[in-house]
């Protein structure tokens, strides 16, 4: 799917501020034909504003929006021909499901027979036959979500924009809809921009992920790239909850971290005395006795999560380190332990 080549949506140096708050601080982005690109980030990072700028709901202060190479910065939303699914679904409460889906077709003056057929096809696509005459209020959250998707797809949009479409669903349904959403997007092949704050959703659904923070894109890459090779401490922390350790190079491969000498293998040689920021994933941190490449720590908290547990550790000087261990760990809050940090588990962060 990725790298089909042709750019469908392009943002060039887009800025948007709300008063003092900068929502988009010079965003450049290119979405390729047929791909599903996710904007991932915490609330307030500018991901929804970015979506709204593409949709035409929000006018940027500076920069350009291009669709198929044409500058649409001045084109109102109703002329852009994009499909949008909202977090609240935004189904028209005074219309039946069928009329909701047919809304865009009526605006396009599609004939009655053709419109009815397309509404039927759209309902089949989202597996919702038999509710055409109901009101949105009579549907469950998952069903409303499908109607919203059908309504956006039935107009055959150039781009599908999804604003946290799964956020309002409960966990189980969210996982089902995530899989189904991916299938549907594959089936119709529509270029899609998806906004979420959920890293699992982003990693599981996307062809590419743009991790956003403070109105900027920190990293843009495949799910594997942003998870395995985060380029900034923020990405490492947000995608996969990695810990960031600051150390001083002590010659060779050795780095002094919180009072311990740790061997670290990076893809560049270290100059003795330089400060490095190292990223390590919780699943790479092991608890055990003192030994090579271990650092003394105190357990600050344990959270049992079924198949694994999260152990929050505090190192010398208050540095935090997160470890993920299988099952229930043999330590409890307050214990003094050693955390083993494998030398090839480190990444360097900007």
């Amino acid at each position, binding site marked *: 799917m990725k790298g089909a080549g042709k750019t469908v949506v392009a943002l060039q140096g887009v800025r948007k501020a709300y008063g003092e708050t900068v929502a988009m601080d010079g965003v450049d982005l290119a979405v390729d034909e047929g791909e599903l690109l996710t904007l991932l980030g915490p609330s307030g990072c500018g991901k929804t504003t970015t979506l709204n700028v593409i*949709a*035409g*709901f929000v006018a940027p202060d500076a920069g350009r929006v291009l669709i198929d190479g044409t500058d649409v910065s001045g084109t*109102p*939303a*109703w*002329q*852009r*021909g*994009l*499909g*949008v699914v*909202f*977090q*609240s679904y*935004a*189904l*028209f*409460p*005074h*219309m*039946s499901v069928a*009329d909701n889906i047919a*809304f*865009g077709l009526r*605006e*396009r003056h599609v004939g009655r027979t053709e419109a009815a057929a397309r509404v039927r096809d759209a309902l089949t696509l989202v597996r919702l036959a038999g509710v055409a005459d109901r*009101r*949105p*209020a009579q549907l469950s959250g998952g069903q409303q979500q499908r109607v919203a998707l059908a*309504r*956006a797809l039935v*107009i055959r949009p150039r781009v599908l*924009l999804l604003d946290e479409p799964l956020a309002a669903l409960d966990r189980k349904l969210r996982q089902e809809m995530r899989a189904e959403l991916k299938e549907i997007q594959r089936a119709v092949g529509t270029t899609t921009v998806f906004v979420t704050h959920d890293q699992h959703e982003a990693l599981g659904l996307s062809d590419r992920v743009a991790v956003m923070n403070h109105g900027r894109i920190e990293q843009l890459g495949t799910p594997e790239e942003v998870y395995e090779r985060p380029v900034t401490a923020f990405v490492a922390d947000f995608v996969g909850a990695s810990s960031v350790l600051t150390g001083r190079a002590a010659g060779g491969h050795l780095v002094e971290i919180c009072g311990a000498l740790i061997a670290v293998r990076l893809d560049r040689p270290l100059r003795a005395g330089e400060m490095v920021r190292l990223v390590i994933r919780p699943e790479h941190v092991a608890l055990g006795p003192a030994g090579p490449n271990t650092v003394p720590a105190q357990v600050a908290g344990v959270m049992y999560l079924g198949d694994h547990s999260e152990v929050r550790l505090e190192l010398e000087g208050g540095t935090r380190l997160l470890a993920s261990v299988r099952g229930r760990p043999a330590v409890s809050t307050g214990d003094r332990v050693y955390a083993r940090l494998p030398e090839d588990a480190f990444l360097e962060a900007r």
Partner: protein
Amino acid sequence: MTARAAGIALVVLLLAFLTVPSLVVIVMSFNPTAIMAFPPHGLSLRWYENALTYPQFQRAAVNSLIVTAAGTLLALPIGTAAALALVRHGVAARAVWAAALLSPVVVPGVAAGLGFLILAAGLGLLASRWVLIAVHAILVLPFVIRSVAVSVANLDPALERAAASLGARPSRVFRRVTLPLLRPGLAAAALFAVIVSFNEFVVSLFVSTRVTEILPVAMFTYVVNYTDPTMAALSTLFIVATFVAVFVAERLLGLSRVFGLEGHSHAGPSR
């Protein structure tokens, strides 16, 4: 239990306090004599006959219907636009606008009436019914804005964005989405406007002539000159008319919806 009994007694007293004056007027209206005696000696409909056949009342009733209908129809679109602007769009100096638009509620009727009188005289429109219509539209505007504003605040902006993304130009979005979803607020606004306008007296007194005067003004003039129970009969008709209006509104729309107590999600029984 005594606290409960005391509570019930208080409620009964309050209800009595609210309804007894109306009940006295209704009883008096059936008085057979020209003197307002209480309790009445017998039953008669002669004052109803007098009220309904008195030419000045007939003319005033027609005036009232015209002024109330025209004033309400004028205030609804203006008030809806104002409510949308105040709630939705970042209007500059919003507080000033809101205060100005809602001021008819707080400005004393006598002051407003005098102002309108001077203005109308200056424009040479003293004899025109349009002055009365404009005055009523202005006076009911705060009620219209308040009612519609509740519906606007309940309206998810994403609905209008959704309509736009589906290809609807702004005028179409308004007609197909915004307006239908504001219907409960508009119905409440119309009901308030009609009741307020139909009962308006103080300001109307200043800008009415013998030809354009509305029912409350005609009733006042009558009371100044005569003391028979005609007024009680007319007041009874007034009370009944108001009750019928509220009852019809309740049956057609449901008062809970009219007053915006229920959400907008179940709006409209049919398309």
